[in-house]
């Protein structure tokens, strides 16, 4: 188990390193020298030189990368070129908003998606199964930003039930909850369909297994067979899918936060990209990648907890 943990940590470090190298590569492929984009067409060469130096862009790339990692290892993700605030502070401010949005979206998507998937299995082959399948697939097919715009139009503009933009007033919890409803629907809706199909597929496979026949042969109530004997097993592959899919939750948060003008990692990173605010871009990517790796590791541990076969394989 310890060797496993060490292996996982080393792999995570390697992944972080490769991701950041790729990010550096992309930054230099994007047309436009950061300093001139940032300062606009009327900047003087002296001003440009000053900004280039401040961003550390006058140094060779290898030195830049080395500095970035050396600082990041000490918890210093650099300074915002514009506001001069530490990048880490900004991330720690924005991240809880995105985390809240993602968690709420995933929670309701999980509840609804698993329920729909199980119902489809219980009523397999019937009209209910087909109708749920149709709804699931259409949920998967609509992009989150399209959903976001229509939700805005219907519930915020026409009906005026819910606020259109922002995250609610600080300290005013009901207003924050109200502001969370539409964005979390936009982020979660695709997941409902996806999870429903996933759970349905793995449940169908498990319901045909011999041990389910055993449970039935001992006269266990069908409800118990479905929840305790089948769902517990069907949930295991779903967990790794959810963990891997968290990346797409973060990226749909970029769109949804932009549409709803919510503060968060998405807004932070898009703003920084437009302003060529590289320390913020790099810092945010590093942070979200690290978070993502953490989630995947947690998911693996959770799977090991739920499935004794995986647990024993790891212990070896």
């Amino acid at each position, binding site marked *: 188990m310890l060797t496993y943990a060490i292996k996982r940590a080393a792999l995570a470090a390697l992944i972080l390193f490769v991701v950041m190298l790729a990010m550096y590569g992309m930054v230099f492929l994007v047309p436009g020298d950061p300093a001139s984009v940032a300062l606009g067409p009327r900047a003087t060469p002296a001003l440009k030189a000053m900004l280039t130096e401040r961003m550390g862009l006058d140094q060779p790339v290898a030195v830049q990368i080395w500095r970035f990692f050396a600082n990041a290892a000490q918890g210093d993700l650099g300074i915002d070129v514009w506001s001069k605030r530490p990048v880490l502070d900004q991330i720690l401010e924005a991240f809880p908003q995105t985390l809240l949005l993602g968690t709420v979206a995933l929670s309701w998507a999980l509840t609804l998606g698993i329920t729909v998937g199980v119902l489809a299995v219980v009523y397999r082959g019937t009209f209910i199964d087909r109708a749920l399948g149709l709804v699931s697939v259409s949920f998967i097919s609509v992009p989150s930003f399209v959903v976001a715009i229509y939700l805005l139009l219907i519930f915020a503009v026409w009906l005026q039930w819910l606020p259109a933009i922002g995250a609610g007033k600080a300290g005013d919890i009901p207003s924050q909850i109200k502001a969370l409803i539409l964005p979390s629907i936009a982020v979660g809706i695709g997941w409902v369909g996806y999870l429903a199909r996933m759970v349905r597929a793995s449940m169908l496979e498990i319901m045909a*297994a*011999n*041990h389910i*026949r*055993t*449970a*039935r*042969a*001992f*006269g*266990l*109530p069908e409800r*118990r067979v479905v929840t*305790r*004997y089948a769902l*517990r*097993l069907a949930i*295991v592959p779903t967990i790794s899918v959810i963990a891997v899919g968290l990346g797409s939750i973060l990226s749909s948060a970029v769109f949804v936060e932009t549409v709803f003008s919510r503060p968060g990692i998405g807004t932070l990173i898009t703003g920084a990209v437009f302003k060529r605010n590289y320390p913020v871009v790099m810092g945010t990517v590093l942070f979200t990648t690290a978070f993502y790796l953490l989630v995947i590791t947690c998911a693996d541990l959770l799977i090991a907890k*739920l*499935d*004794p*076969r995986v647990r*024993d394989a790891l212990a070896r």
Partner: protein
Amino acid sequence: MTEPLLEIDALNVTYHTDQGKLSALRGASLIARAGEVIGIVGESGCGKSTLAASVINLLPQAAEVTSGAVRYKGADILTLPPEAQRALRGQDIAMIFQDPMTAFNPVLTIGAQLIDFQHAAQIPRAEKLARARALLSRVGMPDPDLTLRRYPHQLSGGMRQRVAIAAALLMNPTILVADEPTTALDVTMEAQIIHLLRDLRRDYQGAILVITHHLGVVAELCDRVYVMYAGEVVEEARVDDLFHAPRHPYTRALIACDPGHFEQATPILPTIQGRLPDLRNPPTGCSFAPRCPLAEAICATPPPRVPISLTQSALCHKAGGQP
């Protein structure tokens, strides 16, 4: 003679497949009385597992009972409401399944499952646990307490089959159906499990149905045997009569092919020529005729069930003559 505990009466079961309807059971009948161990033998695809599943009406979804009855203590199980059927399962009629590798849920401990299987008993959890422990030692598990905490994959195949037998005995069922209880095991394990089943039958009051393709298992365990071929019971006999005076040509061929009976080494194992008839389109005459050395023109017509004695009968035009 005592009233039968279980009576399968002219059961017809059809599977709906992509290639059309398949008749898995064609008028199969069987009787089991208390204290009897019944063997059901036949090659793969002869319908013996379908027969076993129909005893607790747990046929696959694609299967349909087209006619016939499965009477337990006189009442037709197939026409009982689903809840009443469920109440019988595991309580009155228990199954021991073929593949011990996959018969238990992989994410629940043996203990949790053995307690779950006693769901109908209105006794405290501790008592259920004690009962599970007692049965595990009854079937020869060396450390019952440890076994209860184990997950299925942590036990060997033979141990899992012992646990499966313990599970089946939990609720003191009156009918025990063992579907190929030794097929997935190696020879040593098979001998141990047969030994265990023999041991159990001594103080068992109900009826045991053993489904197998292994004549050795039949000879070791059973009182009476039903030989199945292509969804039909082709011969019914007491175990001694079956081995010493088989009347159906298929039974004779089966016995001739059993390697356990050879006294000398043979370079070629004898087999029955030909293959099972296509059950999507079952023959109107004797289904064994195309493979039968005794087949004549008359075998193209439906064969009669010829009574040989009170306990033996064969479904064959030629069974009337001397064996």
